[in-house]
């Protein structure tokens, strides 16, 4: 990161009158508004933006149906311009199954949290994956039940702060986290499995690509596709908002390793993922420093 001397504050209340073109609009086409009631520093809106953009990039906008889980992200049901079938807590993958079987040409995906998917509905997502159902499940994994106040979930990592593990999750008392992406990758019905994150711009860009590949997998009817996205929950982690990204990468991110866990039927090893992550991070940071991520 270069450091240049700080000049005067520039007026950012309106677009430059001329001589400039929009690189990124404030909102993707599929978002009605930027008003939402999620907490400051929450990672979920970032994941949802990537999701919307991935659908737009692939021209799948008018085919999208979302089976929506129950968690903080649920309130986006009113602000994304996507058909929604609201699921009960944990049940979205089954809904997606029923929808897809009746509407095989639609792009059917779930949007769930870790509490929704890995606690209450663990069985649903695994069976749907094993069945090779041609749907995409998207997991926003913050390692807590954000909505109910930040309690530990089945994905909280050892040492993670949550409402009921203020001193960090303790394996002896609370058990071990489930690495859901890794489990799903082992199921034959799962064609594409990836884990992204939104703790910095590079990860956001990578995550969007993963979402695109997942939707392509569905378009090609190649089987079940799955994208897990690590998101910050400063509220449930009981930390200042600004510390969210670092806390994410040093706790959740160290255990739930980012990367494409399974693509074209091949499962990646931990070492492969690690190496790739180091390489990609450097590459993307360099691109950003040069002026933007090259698609």
């Amino acid at each position, binding site marked *: 990161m270069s450091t240049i001397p700080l000049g005067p504050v520039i007026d950012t209340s309106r677009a430059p009158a001329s001589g400039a073109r929009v690189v990124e609009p404030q909102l993707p086409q599929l978002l009605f508004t930027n008003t939402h009631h999620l907490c400051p520093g929450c990672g979920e809106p970032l994941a949802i933006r990537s999701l919307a953009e991935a659908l737009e990039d692939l021209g799948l906008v008018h085919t999208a149906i979302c089976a929506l889980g129950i968690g903080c992200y649920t309130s986006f049901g*009113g602000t994304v311009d996507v058909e929604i079938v609201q699921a009960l807590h944990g049940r979205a993958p089954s809904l997606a199954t*029923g929808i897809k079987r*009746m509407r095989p040409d639609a792009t059917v995906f779930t949007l769930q949290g870790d509490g929704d998917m890995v606690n209450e509905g663990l069985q649903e997502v695994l069976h749907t994956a094993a069945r090779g159902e041609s749907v995409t499940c998207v997991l926003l994994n913050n390692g807590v039940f954000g909505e109910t106040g930040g309690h530990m979930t089945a994905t909280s990592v050892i040492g993670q702060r949550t409402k009921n593990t203020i001193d960090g999750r303790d394996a002896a008392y609370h058990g071990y986290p489930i690495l859901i992406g890794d489990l799903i990758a082992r199921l034959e019905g799962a064609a594409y499995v990836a884990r992204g994150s939104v703790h910095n711009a590079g990860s956001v860009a990578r995550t969007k690509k993963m979402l695109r590949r997942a939707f392509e997998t569905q378009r090609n009817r190649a089987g079940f596709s799955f994208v897990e996205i690590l998101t910050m929950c400063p509220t449930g982690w009981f930390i200042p908002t600004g510390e969210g990204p670092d806390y994410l990468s040093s706790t959740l991110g160290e255990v739930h390793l980012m990367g494409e866990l399974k693509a074209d039927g091949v499962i990646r090893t931990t070492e492969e993922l690690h190496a790739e992550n180091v390489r990609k991070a450097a590459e993307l940071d360099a691109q950003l420093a040069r002026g933007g991520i090259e698609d």
Partner: protein
Amino acid sequence: MTTATPTRALMEGSEALVRAAILADCKFFAGYPMTPFTEVLEHFAALLPDVGGVCINAESELEAVGMAWGAVATGERAATGSTGQGIALMQESFSEATLAELPLVIFNMSRSQGDYFQATRGGGHGDYRHLVLAPQDVREGVRLVQLAFHLADKWRNPVMLYGDYLLAHTQEAVTVEKVDLPPLPPKDWGVDGTTSGTGRSRTVTSLGVAKPGARPFGQEGKAQYIATKMAYLEREVRSESGYCDDAETVIVAFGSPAKFVKYAIAQLRDEGLRVGYVRPITLWPFPTEAVHAAAQGARVVGSFEISSGQMVDDVRIAVAGAAPVEFIGGVSSDHSGFGLGRLLDVDEVRERIRALHEGRPQPPVPGYEEFAYEPLPHQLAATPEVTP
């Protein structure tokens, strides 16, 4: 036999109900095996693919109801089903499906009539109700299945078909033919993906969340909306009455057991006894007016159920003091616990009705006394008051 040209055939109830569902344009089914519901699932699995439908052998009841929920949300006709315990697992979904205004049809092939409360009061939360249709036999089942899909769509509300072991397994010579029902408006709320990105993307939800431009219920508004909707559904009440005009004794009974009651009452009438019956066809809404009317001139009203007495609550509410109400049924299952038991015998039923009519105590339920609960000494002592 294709469903397009109905022919007459001997078939078990499960098959007839499934064929009726397909005739009603049911395109999706998901279920998990459980006696005596299993065959409904098997017939859907065998027959739906032929009409371009899908039947999934879901991995559990929770997943079955979820899949059906998804299918219904697309605007296609779809159903699920199970038996007592499996239905219990689905209760959260039934309650919320009512809030989401989903025309889901549920095949409840129960193990007894002790699931009356489950069916009519639900185990779900909140002020929801769904229609419950209880056919007395296969012939009527074929018609009520079609009605179930119609009413579900008419009201955008779940409808349950309450059957039992006898309905599922009795074979009858039946013609599965179409029932005449009026057309319904198109389902302009079903999802198919095409309205995404248009500014008017559709939402099927039990919550108060709404897209810009849609009705912004909020949680409270949604609950009030549904509560007021339920009052309209009460119009769909249906029942059958017989010999009530001059009846001194009126029996209320539903489902397969009602056939035993009706048969027994015909015999008693032959003997000259003034007994009549009301058979609720909808368990919810309960035919309160029909029962109340029948009770007006009666000396006594009996509720015959294969349970320890559940519908009798609704009978009491309906009768509202116009005559004494007695429960004359009992718990009675076959040795497996899956079917209906020894009490379901026309002779037994007739003698119970006769005893009621003559003011005598009820004969014992076969097998009952042997297993009656014996309270322990400490249970006979009154528990002290703990509140001031």
